């Protein structure tokens, strides 16, 4: 099994440091400081040849592993299943509110347009237009009624 140092070196591609001979240290006991802990430990890279190691078949572990994965998946699915409606509801809520605002805006616009239509069709305005265009009042029974759309409020709607 590779140690952390081995992994580090593999990633960085560092070469294994050559073994360094430890120089003989002449210690003057009288003047020397006390050694710091683990001063005598040196890290070095040890080549391990695992090519001849054969992994022993362990069906139980494999089953356990798969069981763990499936259980985890089920748990995640369950969790997502639990949370998903709430999230969807929240998203739908935003959409509904947006649509409601749009609907209200459209209703307000419709009301405003209806008012504009009523203003445009007011008898006073129509008469003003007629006078401006030098129209004269049509003779009785000489008025032609147009087909109106359902719900139209145009004044020539035939009753």
């Amino acid at each position, binding site marked *: 099994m590779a140690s952390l140092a081995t992994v580090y070196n593999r990633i960085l591609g560092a070469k294994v440091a050559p073994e360094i001979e430890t120089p003989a240290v002449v210690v003057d006991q009288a003047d020397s400081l006390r050694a710091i802990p683990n001063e005598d430990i040196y890290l070095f890279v040890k080549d391990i040849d695992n090519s001849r190691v054969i992994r022993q078949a362990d069906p139980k572990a494999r089953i356990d592993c798969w069981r763990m994965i499936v259980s985890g998946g089920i748990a995640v699915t369950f969790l997502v299943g639990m949370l998903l409606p709430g999230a969807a509801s929240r998203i739908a809520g*935003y959409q509904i509110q947006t649509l409601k605002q749009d609907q209200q805006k459209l209703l307000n616009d419709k009301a405003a347009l209806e*008012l504009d239509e009523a203003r445009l069709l007011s008898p*006073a305005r129509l008469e003003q237009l007629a006078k401006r265009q030098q129209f004269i009042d049509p003779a009785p029974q000489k008025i032609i009624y147009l087909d109106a759309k359902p719900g139209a409020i145009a004044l020539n709607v035939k009753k």
Partner: protein
Amino acid sequence: MHETPEIKRVRLLMRMALLWAAIIFARLVYLQVFQHSTLKHVADLQHAHQMTVEVPRGTIFDRNGVPLAKSETLESVCVNPRRVPDAEVAADMLSGILDVDSKALRAKIADTAKDDGGFLWVQRFISREQSERLRSLNLDWIEFRTESRRVHPNGQLAAHVIGTVNSEQKGDSGLELSMNSDLTGMPGEIRLETDPKRRVFGSEVERSAIPGKDITLTIDSRIQYVAERELALAVENAHPRTASVVVLDAKTAEVLALANWPTFNPDDPVRNSSDLAARNDVAVTSPYEPGSVFKVVTLSSALETTDLRPESIIPCMNGVLRLGRRVIREAHGGYGKLSLADVLAKSSNIGAIQIAMRMGQDNQHAYVEKFGFGQATGIPLPSESRGTLRKKWQATSFASVAIGHEIAVTAVQLAQACDVVANNGVLLPPRLIIKKQRSDEPPEYEPAARPRTVLRPEIAITMRQLMEGVVLHGTGRRARLTGYTAGGKTGTAQIFDRATHSYGRYYNGSFMGFAPVGNPAIVIVVTLNGTTGGAAGYGGVVAGPVFKQVATAALRILDVPRDLPDDFKDDSNENVDMNDLSIAGLDPTTGSELMSQTQSLAQASKPPGQAFFVGPVAVSNVVVGPKVPDFRGMSMRDVILRAGEAGVSVETIGHGIARAQSPLPGMMVPAEEQVKVQFSR
């Protein structure tokens, strides 16, 4: 089994995890069970908001679905002066978009901020474009409030009927006031759930909003417009203090138009007392002495209760009638004898008083009540006046009432009474509302009032013929229509001056009529109160033309078939006297003394069921002469032959088929009198 250190470590880890889970569970139990209500309240404060859902006021439509009054939702702008970084910049910015004065706004913002005020209206009811431009600035100190405003797309059209609302959108006058509970909905409550950014992601209706009911009126905006237009023209010419026009559907008594002058625009605020006075619904709230138009009631009642017929001759005493010591004079010289039909056509006051005498006070009072006077019609408009009809009449009241004095009526009451004649003797109260409807509910149709028979149908038809005579050759000639027959009655009543306690020189000029005569479709009452005196103020002169214009337009709009050819022109009686001024000089106090004497004299010869029948003016029904045949529908040759057979001489006018005649069929005419027959193709 020997446990390895790894297993021990795993076990320890699991125990710790279990303990951790247990602690969390305990904490959850504590929070969600024991602290539930407290925390829910705190949470609600953070992410739930209660909001009131304002509902728009119901719309008022005319009979064709044209909106007359509608609520519009608009935004208003306000600022929090404490949050405004620079009042001058803010004022410049806002005045660039809104219609506000920059300097004034700057001062307001500064003053409000100085007083530590946190709210200031900048402008109410801004347009959508202005709202969008302001929103695009994305400034947090500019706030918007949604407000509702009543809008009248046709301006002042039917203003008195619709009425006004106050700043709180509550009815102030007209239908807005009387139907306020129907028009006003009930606001709803809604609970909004918001995220930390205050974006709404959920809502729950806690109390449903109930929208106001839309109301469909019987008013036809086209007829209403013509009525207002013609009334304004008449006012320009006659300068009355007030005026009104009421148009009814003759069959259903539905109010097709109700116009008053002075009028107002409901969108404009009240600025002064004249603005306030203009909001008075004269036709409904202001009774007046009707004058000669009331002779229709007098004569109808007489035809119903006595043996008088249209051809009955009424002595008109050459214009002078003595009631005891009192002398009543005709307004225009006077007549010797008139047929009952001519009493109406020529609007003879003495003739009407004679007829009232013949009918008797009790009958007269009863029929005045039957015609609906002295009672509210029930039209759903606020402050409707019942008019004035005294329970106990004084001695001369019968004479005053016969010619439309000592009684006060509203234009709506007159229209109702005229409709009795037009509708074959059946009284129907005026109807103003067709239906009420909430947006998501079926319509509630207003139930029709129970009809009441006042006159026999034959009497109503006779009265229609007599009223046609008024238009053809009486005081109502200016109301004659082209293409349609019409009947009516003019009225000119002197106005009682409260200052001098006498009848002054101002007149109430009126005309009430219907068209066509054969099968009336509309009833119109025109009243101009306070016209300047003289011939220019007579009802036939000032109100007759209004009737003509309004009736012509209304009949065309209602698609009523013509019953006369276009070229029909009755040119007889060109110089007819239009004076129908009713005598107003019947002083009740002196009249009382006079009539007590007169009554004692009359008791001896009083016929059964008649209160008064004054000796010197006793009516004779007998006239010597041939009976006039019915020439209508005959060719000229047939008319001449038939006239010869009957022993009457005829004067023919025009060519074609006989369309009208005077005197009416069945009347007795003196041998020397000619029957005028109008022909047309």
